[in-house]
Each structure stands twice: as structure tokens, then as C-alpha cells.
């Protein structure tokens, strides 16, 4: 009877109101058999970390188009760590300029998926990361 599902939180931190991309990603992860907790627009890093904790998610996807990623992403990573959730994988979507990518990856971001990314790319990346972290046998 026991079954384990990958749980992913999809959130939009900051002030931009464009959630089309976040919804497309949520839908693609659902179709890949994952449980997606969608929290909606204008979340603070604190709200995101809190939701990630209560929901005990395996990964957090952040969609940011406002250009505030260098402020918001490190804060989310910091709060996750402070809550004892450093194992949670964080990935990004939205508009992230190429020159910011190396630093974000260095901070521990799992992947950055801009416009035009095929959904298979991030679905597979999440699965691989989960597999490596937990040595799961069956994945949704």
C-alpha cells in the first residue's frame, strides 16, 4: 500500500503578476505524476519557506519575472536551511539573465529553466535529483 510521491511547491515570490509559466510548469509536473502544491502570486520568501515546511516538499520551483531573483532566491535558500530543509531542491523559471546563472547555481539552485524549456527537461532533472537523494525505487 505504501506509495511515495514527489511533492513540489510552485510559488511566485515578488511582485510581478504573470503566473502563466508557473501554471504550465505545475501542470507538467502533475502530468508527470507528481503532487504539486500551488501557492499563487505575490509570496514572500517567508511564506514560501513556511509552506515548504508544512507540506514537507521535496522541491521548490520559483517563478520570477520581476528581476528580483538575486534578492529573493538567496533569501528562500537561507530560510529553507534555517528550517532544517537544506535537502529541498530549488529550481527557477522566468527571466534570469545569463550572467546571474553561475552565482545562483553556486548558491545551490538545482536548475534554471527559462522560456522555451521543454517540460521533459525539468521533470527529468527533478526525478534524477530525487533518485540521487533518496535512492527511491519507484517514482510517480
Amino acid at each position: 500500500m505504501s506509495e511515495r510521491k514527489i511533492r513540489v511547491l510552485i510559488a511566485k515570490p515578488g511582485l510581478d503578476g504573470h503566473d502563466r509559466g508557473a501554471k504550465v510548469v505545475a501542470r507538467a509536473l502533475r502530468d508527470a505524476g507528481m503532487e504539486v502544491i500551488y501557492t499563487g502570486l505575490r509570496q514572500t520568501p517567508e511564506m514560501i519557506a513556511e509552506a515548504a515546511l508544512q507540506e514537507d516538499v521535496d522541491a521548490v520551483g520559483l517563478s520570477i519575472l520581476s528581476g528580483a531573483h538575486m534578492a529573493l532566491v538567496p533569501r528562500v535558500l537561507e530560510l529553507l536551511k534555517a528550517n532544517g530543509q537544506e535537502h529541498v531542491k530549488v529550481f527557477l523559471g522566468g527571466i534570469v539573465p545569463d550572467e546571474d546563472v553561475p552565482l545562483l547555481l553556486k548558491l545551490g539552485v538545482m536548475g534554471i529553466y527559462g522560456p522555451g524549456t521543454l517540460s521533459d527537461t525539468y521533470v527529468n532533472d527533478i526525478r534524477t535529483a530525487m533518485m540521487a537523494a533518496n535512492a527511491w525505487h519507484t517514482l510517480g
Partner: protein
Amino acid sequence: MDLVQGILAGDRLALARTLTQVENGTAEGKSALSLLFPHTGKAHLVGVTGASGTGKSSLVNQLARYYRMPAGESTRRVAIVAVDPTSPFTGGAILGDRIRMRDLAGDPGVFIRSMATRGSLGGIASATSAVVQVLDAAGYDLILIETVGAGQSEVDIARLAHTTLVVEAPGLGDDIQAIKAGILEIADVLVVNKADLPGVENTERALRGSLNLAHPVPHRFIHHGKLEIIPEQSAVSAASEPLWVPPILRTVALDGTGIPKLADAIADHRAHLETTGGWEQRVRWRLQTELDQLLQTTLVEGFRSRLPAGAYEQAVQDMLERRLSPFQAVEKLVDGAGGLITEHT
């Protein structure tokens, strides 16, 4: 055990982790449940059900906010379990109830957990009861359980909760919908949400009409020139539980209108259950349901593991080729395994 100690000490990460284990039905989850079980039985479990789009999540948000007031002073801790459907095709799910509950973010006295149904059809997941037990043991005084958007027969919540709210909204069906069996029958409190919309009178009238058929109010009226009298009913109904007539309340979850009255009605229902013995009756009913389900799963699993290899597949094949009816197939399997009850060695 670390996680259990953590939960009892109020560690939220330990709680979240344990909920995952319990939801996944792992051995660790089961042993945690056994250790936590003696600490359960204190929380008031309130189910919130109703059709999709009637505003269940927003209502739960407002109720939790109300229970947490006055801000910073309330000692009532509130947990929310919000259930959304799993896709029958991919096994995935989008759990979107938190979108409506952002007012509760940052309040350490509120814990929200989203769950997918994972194949259950009764409006909640099969592990919802276990998840609620963990939250109960963790010391949450009030646990709001929001079902999936329920149509007519998703009534499992009534077996889990002490108090069940059924949420309706204007414009969702005529008075025949209101007299069908199922979801309206399980209501302890009926809520007409979105009461600022046109048509709220019609919705309320249909519900009241349906309710009056079950609980006639005493009154006199002239019908075709004759005086008709509907007498007062005796206080004890034929049902095993003493009479409670579900109140019908109007709310607007967007701005909080009607929420204090709704909270009062929930408290009244609790008081009613406690004074009439209904509380214990409901708990007994829930535990019995749970025991039955566990017994079934365990017996079937144990039975199947004792079957000779291939016997089960053979029985299916025999049915497929119409050599055995389903009843005969069961008989054959039970005989083949040496009967249902065997001595343990």
C-alpha cells in the same frame, strides 16, 4: 523515537515529516501513529464539504482567522487538512487550496497540510484520518478538514469529523438537488456562501424546504380553506442520536461576513454532541470504520500471500472464460487456501 518526541514537543518539521510517512503508509509512519495514538482524541474535527467553487477554501481561511483572533492572544491552535483530487491517469495532483489561505501565513498557531486523494473516491484520502490523528496528537485544538469539491455522494467526511459543514452557493441547482440523498444529509451546519450574490434567497429556501421535510417545524396554516396543524415533534428522534436541526447560515467568505455566527454554530454543535453523548457515539463510529477498513486490508493481504502461486490468476482466467462465476471463484480460492481462518503456527 525522535520524530514522535519532536511532535509532542511542538517541532513543526518533525510533524511535517511524520505526516509524509503516515500518508505514504510506511512502517515508520505506522509506528509513529501507534506511539501518538494515546495522545489523540482531544481535537474538535470539523469537516468542510460542498461542490467545487462554493468557496470552501476561502471559508476555511476565514474560520481559521476567526479562531486565531484576537491576534496574538488566542490560545486555540488550528490545523487545516485540505484535500484535492489525484489524476486517475497520471497519479499526479495540483493542490491549490493554499492559494485561498494566504492570510494565515506567518501564524505559528496554524498548520496547513495539503493532501491528494490518491485514488480514494469518498472525498477525502484514505490516509486523511491518520493525518488528522497526528495533528490531534500534536496538540491542535481544532482541525478543519476540507474535502475535494464534492458532488453528491462523497460523504466519507461525516465518518471522520465530529461536525460537518456543507457549503452551498447561489445558482448551483434547483430544489430537487436539495432533496436527493447524500451530501445534504450529512450536514450538521448548512452554509450558503457567496451570500452577496443574487439568488441567495432561492438557495436558502430550497435548503430550508428540504430540511423541513426531515425536521418539520410546528405551525398552523390554512390549506384549501381547512386549518392544518403540524404538531411539535418529540425532542428525541427515531435516530440513535438526539435531535439536532442543522442551522442554515449565510456567509461571504471574501470579506468575512457571517463567520462569527458560523463559529458559534460549530461551538453549539460541539456542545450538543457533548451533552447528548453524540460525541462519543461519533468517535466510536469513526474508530469502528477504521478498524473495519484495516481488518479488510490486512486479511486480504494475508489471505493472498497464503494462496498457491498462480491460483489467483487462474481464478481470473476461469471467470474470463465463464467457467466460474465470481462467487464460485471466491469459494475455490478460499478452499484452496485452506479456508479463511487458519491457525497461526
